[in-house]
Each structure stands twice: as structure tokens, then as C-alpha cells.
């Protein structure tokens, strides 16, 4: 199914978990924060999360800032 990650279209296996997706993206699950359709998804809720076609994800990490 197609989802949108950080503004880009991404093809995802329906059976994939969020952590699988993050690894696909090359992200360390411990070092990113996640929003799905504008909702903050805490780490504790990732395991139970089921993604749907068209979901919009934001994967965020800490960068330099003042």
C-alpha cells in the first residue's frame, strides 16, 4: 500500500510494523519521534499501530537548533 512519509510517497508491505518501516527508512527507532496523520504516536503505542492506505507519517529526529 502507499503511504506518505515526510512528504514523500512510500510503498509499504501491508504486514509491516512501524518499526519495520523505520528500519526500511534507515532510522533508528530509538532515535526518532513519530506522527501519523498529525497525531503524536508514543513509542509504547507503536507496536499496536496499524497503518492504512494514504496515511501521512512524519518521522522526526533531533537536529541542531538554538
Amino acid at each position, binding site marked *: 500500500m502507499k503511504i506518505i512519509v515526510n512528504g514523500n510517497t512510500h510503498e509499504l508491505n501491508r504486514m509491516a510494523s512501524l518499526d519495520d518501516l523505520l528500519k526500511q527508512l534507515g532510522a533508528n527507532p*530509538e532515535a526518532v519521534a513519530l506522527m501519523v496523520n498529525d497525531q503524536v504516536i508514543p513509542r509504547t503505542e507503536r507496536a499496536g499501530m496499524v497503518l492504512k492506505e494514504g496515511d501521512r507519517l512524519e518521522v*522526526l*529526529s*533531533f*537536529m*541542531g*537548533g538554538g
Partner: protein
Amino acid sequence: MKTNDKLILGGQEFESRLLVGTGKFSSIEVMLAAIKASGAQLVTVALRRFNRERPSDDLLGPLVKLGITLVPNTSGARNAAEAVRAAMLGRELSGSRFVKVEIHPNPHHLMPDPIETYEASRQLAQEGFIVLPYMPADPVLAKRLEDVGCAAVMPLGSAIGSGHGLSTAEMVKLIIADSGIPVIVDAGIRSPSEAAASMEMGCSAVLVNSAIAAAGDPVGMASAFSWAVKAGAAARLAGLMAQSGHAVATSPLTSFLTGDHA
């Protein structure tokens, strides 16, 4: 508001009164070396989209290794709702309750929005965050933010990146005089002497970013700021010498007190 030794924010104690931002550095290596040299224990970071092309830009691991308390900022948020969401994400990642509320809708001068900042701070304080709001140097706004539960106020010295120093000094003094919480000058500090001056004035701490990141030798400059903040704090405790007074006016004001003055 100053104690004799440690800076206390949100019930936590810190030795260092220099806070450092992580933006604008040429490389992560330089940034980490500068943070070490600064002795800072509180370091601000921003949330950005994870970039698979540059995974090593991620700061979380390296900073955690330094034993630093991360202060996620909400930079990028244009209103309170976005700032609150950014704070939630930041807390998720950092594991700390600290947040720097930073809402600047204008991308040029980056001045903080007082109304959105107040609203975001109010909500986040209620959610249990240790809120450090970046704000215009306004004494009334400072009390409003204190009233809604901020752990400190962070009045700007001058516009972010401008290097115009403590142009708001008189306002900051008014804020310090009536504040029941620490006052941390943030933004616009260009030189270590300005940081020292802020501490001598009574600030509890100083936050510096551009002045270190854009210095010729950021690591050297970070050390300099570290010494300057300590120097200013120590000077305040030690009591500056008297300035030479103006010449006494020819007609004395206290002659009514001479003679029989029971």
C-alpha cells in the same frame, strides 16, 4: 533570581549557568567539541524530519553520551498548537520534561510571538513540562508566563543571529527585579563580555548559540563563554566597586538636616 551556587530549573539543579544551542555548526564534531568546552549541561535541539541521506545528523545519541540534559525547542512552530505538538514529540525523544517554547512566525527577524508563546506555555506547563519560554523582553509578559507555571523566562537580548548584544538590558533589569523565577537571556549575545554583563546584571543564566557556532574557532569561543558566565556570576556575588560619583552640586540638598535635627 540567583542562588549562591546552583541553577535550579524545574526542581533540577545545574552547575553550569551557560546554556548552549546546537544550530548553525559546520559539523557535528565541531558542535560536540564546543559543547564539551562550554561545560553546558542544558543544550537545546530542534526537531526536524529524519533525513535518510544524512543519518549522522541525528544528535540524540552523541548528546546523551555527553550526559547532557536535552531541551527540545519548538522552532518551526508558527502557533501554540504546533508548538504543543512539537513539545510532545520532543519529550518522546529526549525523555526529559524540558522544552524551550520558541514560536517565531516571521522567518526573517525571528521575533517570538508573545500571544502564541503564552498560550503554548500555559498548556505545556499544565501538561507537566518544564517550560522555558523564549520571549520578547517584556516585564509584564514575563509575569504572565511566571503565573502560568513556566520554570524560567528567557527574554531576548536582541534578534536571533543579529549579534546585537544585550540591547534589551533595561527591560531585562525590570524583569529580574520582579521575577520569582530564573531569568535567562537568550538570543543576540555576541561576545563573552556580554554574557558576563548579563550575569552581573542579575540574570540566572545565559543561552548562546550563534556566537559560538559562527565564531572563528567555536571550541575556543565556547571555552571563553564558559569562563565569562562564571566570571559574571562571581562578580555579582563579590560586589562591584563603587563608580566614582558625579561632582556634588553646588547647592547641597541636605542642608535642611544640619543643625538641630531631632
